[in-house]
């Protein structure tokens, strides 16, 4: 679980059109998809968008497995929402809602699957540049985002690991042994990551600069 693209597909090296597209453009696409999902009124339009995005994703060479990997964690949620909305608002609306969510997920994965992490960080650093004068530190901001993106699959992974260690001791029915460790391991992971960065001189505030 740990190493897998969860919600966001992992980067796949490549030289496709999507890989070479400027980061700003890809981000704009993600952003637009987020907006569009509130504007589209017809499920057929959503379906069209989803189809186009999936096409782009496959064009990038990242493969259908990765695409499915990113979407899979949401499958249960989407099924529940879909059925519930169908019952409440009818099939077309339910379809639109579910498709719109998929559009957002695939768009975000398209960005992460075709952009190496350091380019993403460079992009954030550039975007946050103007806030420097208000005391922001773009480099550290970008680093934090980088760690967060990496932590989502990690946390999902700890669920599995914790279940393993509870099972190994025959405690798989003990809610305390299942819930608490997820949080404890996540915090431990956070501190470990922080220390690992600090040891490499990353992420610390400038001590030479104003303090």
């Amino acid at each position, binding site marked *: 679980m740990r190493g897998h693209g969860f919600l966001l597909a992992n980067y796949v090296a490549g030289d496709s059109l999507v890989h070479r597209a400027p980061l700003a453009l890809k981000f704009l696409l993600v952003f637009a998809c987020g907006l569009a999902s*509130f504007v589209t009124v017809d499920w057929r339009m959503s379906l069209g968008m989803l189809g186009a995005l999936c096409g782009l994703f496959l064009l990038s060479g990242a493969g259908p497995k990765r695409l499915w990997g990113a979407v899979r964690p949401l499958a249960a949620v989407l099924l529940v929402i879909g059925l519930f909305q169908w019952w409440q608002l009818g099939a077309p609306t339910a379809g639109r809602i579910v498709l719109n969510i998929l559009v957002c997920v695939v768009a975000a994965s398209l960005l992460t699957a075709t952009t190496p992490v350091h380019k993403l960080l460079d992009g954030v650093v550039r975007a946050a540049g103007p806030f420097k004068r208000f005391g922001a530190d773009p480099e550290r901001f970008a680093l*934090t985002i980088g760690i967060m993106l990496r932590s989502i699959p990690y946390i999902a992974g700890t669920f599995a690991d914790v279940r393993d260690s509870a099972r190994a001791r025959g405690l798989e029915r003990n809610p305390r042994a299942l819930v608490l460790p997820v949080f404890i391991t996540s*915090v431990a992971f956070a501190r470990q990551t922080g220390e690992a960065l600090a040891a490499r001189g990353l992420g610390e505030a400038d001590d030479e600069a104003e303090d």
Partner: protein
Amino acid sequence: MSNTETAATKTPHAGRRRWNATDLGLIAVFAALVAASALVPGLAVNGFGVPITFQTLAVMLTGLVLGPGRGFAAVGLYVLLGLAGLPIFSQGRSGLGILAGPSAGYIIAFPIAAGIVGWLATVVIRRTIKARALWLFLSATVTSVVVVHSLGIAGIVLNTKATWGQAFLSDVVFYPGDIIKNVLAALIAVALHRAFPDILVRRVKRTAPQPAQA
């Protein structure tokens, strides 16, 4: 060598302490925790399509464990990335459009709530050893009523054509769940403070003054 020069610039506790790498790690991971909590399917939905979610648990826990500054930053980062297009709002939604929807008030309230409950937690941790869980629970519940639910209701009224009364009634359904989640958040927070005693109130003090010269 550089002693005289650095002595002047390094005043560790004057003014705001700057975050170190560990703080950044904590902010990032708690933001991720909130994101992960949004994906746990929220079954019931109130009249305006706002689901019951585990976000409130994660948001309160973030404040209770990280304190005001880092708590606000972590949940703020989560909201920012969600608005930017990462599918991490409830039910995998994302984007600026959410600000026009019925959840808008709740989402805006999240970082503020984390900040306030974080401040309360600092006070509780400094003052108490026993019954910490109870005080933390009370802090979370007061914050959730005063900040999350009131801003949430305001959001519903603003973004839908509902009256205050309708909005209030639709919000009330969340209370039982939120209270249970706050109990959990408080219990987990107490355990986390035991596992990581220096996470919020820094215990390590520099005892002896620095020798001026070697």
